[in-house]
């Protein structure tokens, strides 16, 4: 593109365009108090803009934080999951499932209620099936057996099977 000088020969004083380009000679003085009024209006507008900006920021922050907090609170509820069978004894659970359910809790509705209300009654169902299945080994023995399942498979099965079955039914 060819550029042109802006004060060249094309800008002669007789040209009517010169009249347009001539800076205005007219002046219009400000009425008294106009300056203060403009300053007040400008500061009010600035404050409004700042308030609107803060409100938008808060809204966006709330929109971001609320879903995060909600998901976090749902995550806090999940610690009930540990009632599920421990992974170490998982291979022994399937064969013994049908054997344990009946004796573990005579009244399943009661069990459900207790599971809903609190964590204290959880000890009773785990003890019961162990006593019904095998009278001789104690609870501590069962615990020791679950730690080493390969050594005593039968004890491990009974010991571990009782706990998951109760937990399963509670679910």
């Amino acid at each position: 593109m060819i550029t042109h000088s802006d004060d060249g020969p094309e800008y002669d004083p007789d040209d009517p365009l010169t009249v347009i380009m001539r800076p205005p000679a007219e002046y219009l003085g400000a009425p008294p108090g106009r300056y203060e009024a403009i300053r007040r209006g400008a500061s009010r507008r600035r404050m409004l803009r700042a308030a609107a900006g803060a409100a938008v920021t808060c809204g966006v922050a709330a929109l971001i934080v609320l879903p995060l907090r909600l998901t976090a609170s749902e995550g806090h509820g999940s610690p009930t999951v540990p009632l599920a069978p421990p992974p170490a004894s998982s291979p022994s659970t399937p064969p013994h499932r049908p054997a344990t359910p009946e004796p573990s809790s005579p009244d399943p509705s009661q069990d459900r209620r207790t599971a809903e209300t609190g964590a204290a009654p959880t000890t009773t169902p785990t003890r019961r099936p162990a006593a019904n299945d095998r009278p001789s080994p104690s609870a501590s023995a069962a615990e020791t057996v679950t730690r080493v399942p390969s050594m005593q498979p039968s004890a491990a099965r009974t010991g571990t099977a009782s706990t998951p079955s109760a937990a399963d039914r509670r679910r």
Partner: protein
Amino acid sequence: MNRSREKAASELFAALYPRLAGWVRRLVDDDETAHEIASEAFTRLWARWTAVAEPRGFLYVTAANLVRDHWRKLERERRAVRRATTEAAVTPPPEQADPSVRLLVQSLPERLRVPILLHYYADMPIREVSVLTGRKEGTVKADLHTARELLRAHLRRSLDHTL
């Protein structure tokens, strides 16, 4: 800090308001409207004082946009009145005092109007105009030249109509 800013604002107002308001009055032909538009331009400037690098240019461009809005509003009102009255008793509004300046703001596209206003009405050198508009100096010169050519053509046409 605050006092110096207040002083700068006061000096700017004293230096630019009368000239800006006078220029607006030539466009709208009404003192009250001219004061309103000039005041609004200053209010917008001071509402974002820190964000404006070149207040003079900002004021002229804002005022020109407000004048254009004012004309549009007048035109809408005129059309509404024309539609409402069945008689053609409504006389056309008197021609404004200086149609040439109005022509400048009205006829030029935004891209050409802004450099003309800044260079000729705000007395800004081409270098400042180029900084303010973000265009190269050569581009600004070319824009000014194109604007002048357009205005010259407009003037020629309007002179032919009057003769």
